[in-house]
């Protein structure tokens, strides 16, 4: 059952805006599905694993009768598992790929947002008359409700106000539509807003004080998105502090008190991470085209279906009258799931003016108003025995998601290592700053930064090698194999002792690992069509956010029909097609690829029934390979196109939805535990240099070994892993939202002062992806987006320690922070 194979870091955080609600639950009783299943043999395990019990062996699964069963292992396949070039490469490299920002419709108007210039206020009045009168202006819309922020639970306790209370500088207030973009921007400046300013607070430290200005007058909560994040629903709130959310699973596991008492060594430390903004290159935006019978929205989104659902909800129209199109989109990283306040403004302006309206956020608005990764202050205490048994973990974490919630960091502490006694206490602190949203592995890079440094400290204290210690605590077959392979790649055994380099520039090697979860979405469907001219197409609402699912879908259809990926037309990113999953939580590939394979399989069955008589044989005696349709045990054969041309109907087509993960109860090898708690992850090694005189840290090399089930396309996987590492490096060394304390404004809402790693900071990266099969779906594929980013900052921090002999417990590792850490350490030892 899929629901049981999904482990989320923080259960109960999923009150998801716009996310299809039944997505993660099976509605079919097990007994019913059991009647329609057949037993099948699957190969499961890790290809070439060093540990015998982890190697590939047979397992038994119950497979729905209308499903194809297991794909052969990758080496036996022609398309899946191969480094197939991105099929949209020719479009993206020639400028022909049309993104939302590139949509121009006849009569289209351009819109601009009007945002708050103050961090906390009640709006007395809004005068739009001057804006309305500006030449070219066609429409003005003032937001009646603000979404994507926390809301006071008891509505009667919210401050009385005609307009939404302003709680951060940059909060969306209104929108202007005009005949040119320039006119819209100019008119936006003419909107006069009379604010009754309220006291505000911009740092976690100040917000936690008893007399701090209240960001909300009463307890408030915000749900997560399809990409995760959000805050637990039922936790106490006092002042600006919400929490604790106790874990794992709502309560302490075992007794940490006893665990620490029984430890041979105990370490603890305080860690601090900063606010990171998503900074996707294409800003959030839509082109909304309101027609009486249909609202069409071109959206830069990670979820065509989630945008459709929210638009339908906000405007009280049936989902069937909302169409969302995302042919290409320029990055999201977790921030782009819902309609967005800007999207509502654009649709309302289109409705008002009767013309299509384009509204792309400015770079500044993008930084301020549509999400970020919360910061964190983590106190982590860990105890272990000399034999490497982890006896207790206790995490207390405070962080801010601005006017949102979702600053939890406990995922890695709860799920990475075997430990009998675990307690996590997570607090969200409200401040007057833009709301967080899910960002590439919510909570995990932060939590990993604290956990993996603590684990290294503990290893040192019990006198054990960090990798050996992890082998004792973590029996996950993939991670174990990854540590082994990575240690060879990075030449771990040659690692010097901490601070051993004699000169001022010191080198070091460090390791950290990631844990992420097998998350699937059952509302994932695809249709495959074979037409009489021999052309083949796949249709699905799923969107390609850069991971390359468009290409992977072509590979799947090609594999099933014996064609080449370029022979398959993949049409995705449109809610007119069968519903696709939102792309968040690394769920896209796991969710949609089995549906695509099943649809291909069913279309193939129909096709074979029509062409079998042409070859004087039966469907089960036909082989599709190399673009040919051949009878087994005979020399009769046709090209695929010849066979298609003789179909009785002009088209055969089949649709499939994601089936539940296969029931593994009959598994005799005891891998039931594995299928119940499938995690994906990886182990990364970083080599850094630290200039102890200037405080400049450089990452020279990174070795990354990852698992994601069956690798579907090693070329695309490597790209995405590179990307996770570079984002992780950028997070560790540079990125930081700087909020000004006296006015509550972001000082670096641009791309030159909000520093993101570039070509010059890119290290040499070596990637290895292990091939692992679980026998859980018809493709057995998982995701890589999140795990690739999780451990990088922690690995760099551990390498920093190996270089200098000093712990760096704060990121970004800017020179000032580095020099302070080095100086502080000297002071302490003196």
């Amino acid at each position, binding site marked *: 059952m899929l629901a049981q194979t999904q482990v989320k870091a923080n259960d109960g955080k999923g009150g998801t805006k716009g996310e299809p609600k039944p997505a993660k639950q099976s509605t079919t009783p097990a007994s019913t599905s059991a009647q329609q299943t057949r037993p099948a043999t699957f190969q499961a395990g890790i290809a070439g694993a060093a540990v015998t019990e982890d190697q590939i062996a047979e397992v038994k699964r119950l497979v729905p009768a209308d499903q194809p069963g297991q794909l052969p292992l990758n080496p036996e396949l022609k398309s899946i598992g191969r480094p197939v070039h991105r099929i949209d490469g020719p479009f993206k490299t*020639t400028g022909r*790929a049309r993104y939302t920002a590139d949509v121009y419709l006849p009569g289209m108007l351009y819109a601009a947002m009007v945002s708050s210039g103050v961090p906390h206020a009640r709006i007395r009045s809004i005068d739009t008359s001057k804006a309305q009168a500006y030449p070219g202006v066609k429409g003005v819309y003032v937001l009646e409700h603000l979404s994507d922020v926390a809301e006071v639970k008891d509505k009667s306790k919210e401050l009385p106000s005609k307009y939404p209370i302003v709680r951060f500088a940059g909060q969306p207030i209104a929108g202007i539509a005009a005949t040119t973009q320039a006119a819209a921007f100019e008119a936006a400046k003419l909107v006069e807003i009379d604010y009754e300013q309220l006291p505000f607070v911009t740092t976690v430290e100040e917000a936690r004080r008893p007399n701090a200005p209240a960001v909300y007058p009463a307890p408030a909560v915000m749900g997560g998105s399809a990409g995760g994040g959000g805050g637990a629903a039922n936790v106490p709130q006092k002042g600006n502090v919400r929490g604790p959310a106790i874990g794992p699973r709502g309560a302490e596991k075992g007794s940490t008190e006893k665990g620490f008492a029984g430890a041979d060594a105990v370490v603890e430390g305080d860690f601090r991470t900063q606010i990171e903004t998503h900074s996707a290159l294409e800003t959030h935006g839509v082109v909304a085209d309101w027609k009486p019978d249909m609202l069409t929205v071109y959206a830069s989104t990670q979820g065509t279906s989630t945008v459709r659902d929210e638009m339908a909800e906000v405007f009280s129209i049936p989902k069937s009258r909302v169409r969302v199109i995302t042919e290409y989109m320029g990055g999201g990283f977790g921030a782009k799931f819902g309609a967005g306040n800007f999207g509502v403004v654009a649709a309302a302006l289109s409705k008002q003016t009767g013309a299509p309206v384009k509204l792309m956020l400015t770079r500044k608005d993008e930084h301020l108003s549509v999400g970020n990764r919360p910061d964190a202050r983590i106190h982590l205490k860990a105890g272990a025995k000399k034999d490497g048994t982890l006896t207790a973990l206790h995490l207390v974490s405070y962080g801010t998601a601005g006017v949102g919630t979702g600053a939890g960091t406990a995922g890695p502490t709860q799920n990475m290592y075997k430990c009998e006694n675990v307690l996590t206490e997570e607090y969200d602190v409200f401040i007057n700053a833009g709301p967080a949203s899910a960002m590439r592995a919510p909570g995990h890079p932060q939590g990993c930064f604290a956990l993996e440094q603590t684990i290294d400290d503990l290893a040192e204290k019990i006198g054990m090698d960090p990798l050996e210690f992890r082998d004792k605590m973590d029996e996950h077959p993939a991670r174990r194999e990854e540590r082994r392979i990575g240690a060879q790649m990075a030449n771990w055994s040659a690692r010097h002792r901490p601070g051993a380099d004699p000169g001022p520039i010191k080198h070091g090697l460090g390791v950290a690992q990631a844990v992420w979860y097998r998350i699937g979405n059952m509302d994932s469907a695809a249709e495959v069509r074979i037409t009489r001219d021999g052309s083949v197409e796949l249709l699905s609402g799923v969107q390609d956010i850069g991971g390359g699912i468009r290409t992977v879908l072509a590979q799947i259809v090609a594999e099933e029909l014996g064609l080449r990926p370029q022979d398959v037309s993949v049409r995705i990113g449109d809610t007119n097609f069968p519903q696709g999953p939102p792309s968040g939580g690394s769920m896209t590939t796991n969710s949609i690829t089995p549906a695509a394979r099943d649809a291909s399989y069913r279309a193939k069955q129909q096709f074979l029934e029509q062409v079998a008589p042409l070859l004087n044989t039966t469907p089960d005696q036909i082989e599709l390979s190399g673009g040919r349709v051949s009878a087994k045990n005979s020399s009769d054969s046709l090209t695929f196109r010849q066979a298609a041309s003789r179909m009785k109907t002009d088209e055969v087509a089949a649709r499939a939805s994601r089936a539940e993960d296969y029931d593994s109860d009959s598994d005799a090898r005891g891998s039931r535990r594995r299928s119940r708690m499938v995690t994906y992850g990886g182990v990364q090694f970083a080599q850094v240099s630290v200039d102890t005189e200037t405080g400049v840290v450089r990452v020279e090399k990174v070795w990354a070994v990852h698992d994601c089930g069956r690798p579907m396309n090693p070329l695309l996987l490597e790209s995405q892993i590179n990307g996770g590492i570079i984002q992780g490096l950028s997070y560790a060394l540079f990125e930081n939202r700087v909020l000004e304390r006296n006015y509550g404004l972001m000082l670096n809402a641009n791309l030159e002062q909000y520093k993101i790693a570039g070509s010059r900071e890119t290290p040499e990266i070596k990637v290895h992806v292990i091939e692992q099969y679980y026998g859980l779906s018809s493709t057995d594929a998982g995701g890589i987006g999140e795990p690739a980013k999780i451990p990088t900052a922690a690995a760099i921090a551990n390498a920093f320690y190996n270089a200098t002999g000093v712990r760096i417990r704060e990121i970004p590792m800017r020179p000032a922070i580095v020099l302070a850490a080095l100086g502080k350490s000297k002071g302490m030892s003196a």
Partner: protein
Amino acid sequence: MRDKPSQRSPSPPSPEMPKHGTTRRGFLKSAGVISAGTAGLEVLHGVSVAEDEAQARVAGPGKIPLKLDINGQVHSLSVEPRATLAETLRDELHLTGTKVVCDRGSCSACTVMLDKTPVCSCMTLAVDVGDRKITTIEGLAQGDNLHPVQAAFIAHDGLQCGFCTSGMIMSCAALLERNPHPTRDDVKTAISGNICRCGTYPKVFDAVLAASESRGT
């Protein structure tokens, strides 16, 4: 437009004036600059603009006629003097391969070539282009034959979401124009201004080095 030296208008009309002080971009957009065909980018630095007061001439704020040679085709346009080249390409001509990301010259996503020099089209006023030939991502391929850099980007997967790709390819193609045999470090330098949030840099390095080899000597 080419018969007079560059000059900027003495006082921008009020609607274009930024409300809270003058930003770099606000200055650019409101300045109403026109230039001699050869003046090029120097007006952006505000160096030469005041030197020829005697021949001062004001353009705008209304639209003015303009000819641009884009990808080998001359377009007759009418644009406001404050319009950037990026806006003109996209909004007027719907040549949307050129992307606008930061809109202030800090990410290079909007890179096009003026003659063979890569420039940020968001920091170049359309009226400043003069008779230089503009090459955008749409004009890089010769018909169906991709430029070697484009082909190498596909072969080496030098792209993910694709939004930085146009600018990245233009920077790399310009590099090969001025240095047919770059080292890896040369490539890093050439794209040091191109931001990619997906993290495609390592594969861009591979792609450009491969393209350099495929072009031969």
